[in-house]
């Protein structure tokens, strides 16, 4: 790598002569080493799915979650350093609570993504800190303020953003980060996200994670699924076990059938 040995990669507060900040680029490497995470914005909600690589057989199932609820209506999925992800979730919770205290409504998802991106960006400015080794998919349901009835909540819309180590964030219909992001993006592009319901997209999400999983390099993984859907009352919540298992089974079946076709 051209950066090594030049001395321009030792601090986030030093540019290289051609205008790059190598520490931020290295942070992206930390993201790319991580298990894949995807987010799908459907017509009635959002699905988040994570390929959580299981580092040891001794770990309890469900340990080291990478999807976190940060407010009743919002959640984040992270790829990168696990501990950074948890720290970011706590920060996001603080931001959501602060917005609630100030305005007595839930934070619009874009605002949450922006505040998290500002936080990321602050860690690219100082020699005393290291940028986050993290990309985060931010999912939320923007309902009219103080929506208390089912009808009012249903009138909201799903929002999806991705924040990167540099502090940029973009809005997406569907996005993927981590190891299998390239393949995952190609797969997501094939979906008709505007027409899909969350329940349908659940199977696609499971299928994509299973497809991008590289069995040769990484052995065991757990599929982590969360959603914001009519079924969850437009709250961000882990997908109930039975529903998740069913979606995963369907996904596996589809993959098997595709493999048979190829043969």
């Amino acid at each position, binding site marked *: 790598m051209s950066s090594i040995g030049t001395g321009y990669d030792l601090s986030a507060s030093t540019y290289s002569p051609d205008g790059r900040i190598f520490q931020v680029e290295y942070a992206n490497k930390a993201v790319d080493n991580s298990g894949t995470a995807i987010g799908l914005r459907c017509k009635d909600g959002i699905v988040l799915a994570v390929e959580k690589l299981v580092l040891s057989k001794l770990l309890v199932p469900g340990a080291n*979650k990478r999807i*976190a*609820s*940060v*407010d*009743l209506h919002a959640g984040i999925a992270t790829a990168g350093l696990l501990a950074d992800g948890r720290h970011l979730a*706590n*920060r996001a*919770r*603080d931001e959501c*609570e602060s917005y*609630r*205290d100030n305005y*007595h409504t839930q934070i619009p998802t874009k605002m949450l993504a922006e505040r998290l991106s500002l*936080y990321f960006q*602050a*860690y690219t400015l*100082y020699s*005393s*800190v290291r940028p986050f080794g993290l990309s985060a998919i931010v999912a939320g349901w923007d309902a009219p303020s103080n929506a208390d009835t089912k009808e009012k909540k249903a009138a909201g819309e799903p929002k999806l953003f991705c924040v990167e180590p540099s502090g940029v964030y973009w809005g997406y219909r569907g996005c993927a980060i981590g190891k299998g992001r390239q393949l995952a993006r190609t797969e997501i592009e094939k979906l008709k996200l505007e027409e899909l319901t969350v329940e349908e997209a659940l199977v696609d999400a499971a299928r994509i994670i299973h497809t991008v999983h590289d069995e040769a390099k990484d052995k065991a993984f757990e599929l982590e699924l969360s959603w914001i859907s009519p079924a969850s009352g437009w709250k961000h*919540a*882990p997908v109930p076990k039975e529903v998740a298992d069913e979606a995963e089974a369907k996904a596996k079946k589809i993959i098997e059938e595709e493999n048979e076709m190829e043969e």
Partner: protein
Amino acid sequence: MNHFPSTSWGKPRNDALDPYASFPIHQGRPQTNDVFADGVQRTQQPIVTGTSVLGIKFKGGVMMAADNLASYGSLARFKDIVRLHPVGEQTLLGASGDMADFQQVKRLLENLITSEALQDDGHALNPSQIYEYLSNVMYQKRSKFDPFWNAFLVGGLDHDGEPFLSYVDLLGTTYSSPSLATGYGNHLAQPLLRRALERLGPDGYKNLEEDEAKKIIQSAMRVLFYRDARALNKFQIATVTKRGVEVSEPMEAPTEWGFAEGLRGYGNSDETY
């Protein structure tokens, strides 16, 4: 946790303020004296107030009632205030006293419930846990001479499915009973509620049906309207049962004023004016 690198990170310890380095540096440095401390005011009296809240246990649940009035002194200022507030799925909070403080308490409890929900562990706080939190808050505030000027009833179904009903007020005083009432209700309605329960024997509430409880509560609300000058004949009744928390639409108790027709002057006086 101070998340901003610029405000405290990387700054040297201040030995004048923290001579024994007792603060972990990531928490920032201890607060210096607040120059505005003299100007800080604390609640000395309630301003916009709600009157009594009634609560009674019955077979399989808890019922509460409160009227929709918030008074400004003797002025009937707001006539559509809801003083029965669901907290989470299984708890009900009934508030009398200062309505601004009540709103602040609602916010505190909302944050409590939310942060508990964000754990994604499927666990939700039950009424006795919410009550413990609230009474700790109330006692801490009174100990800072800055009380929340309220008397609250907390009701619900506890983890074992048993009805739960407890009281806490601005002093941090706490107690439980099968029937409870705040403010004037404690003088006027509580005896009626107690009588109704005592008629049903020991642990009488276990023999009290929901519709029966509703009748008792409604008649108690009527008595309050007759005799409490800060009460309104527009009130709500809420229940917590297996069905969850249900807060009714505002209702009225039938009243009878015919006797007033022939009254002149005060009491038994024969004088007419």
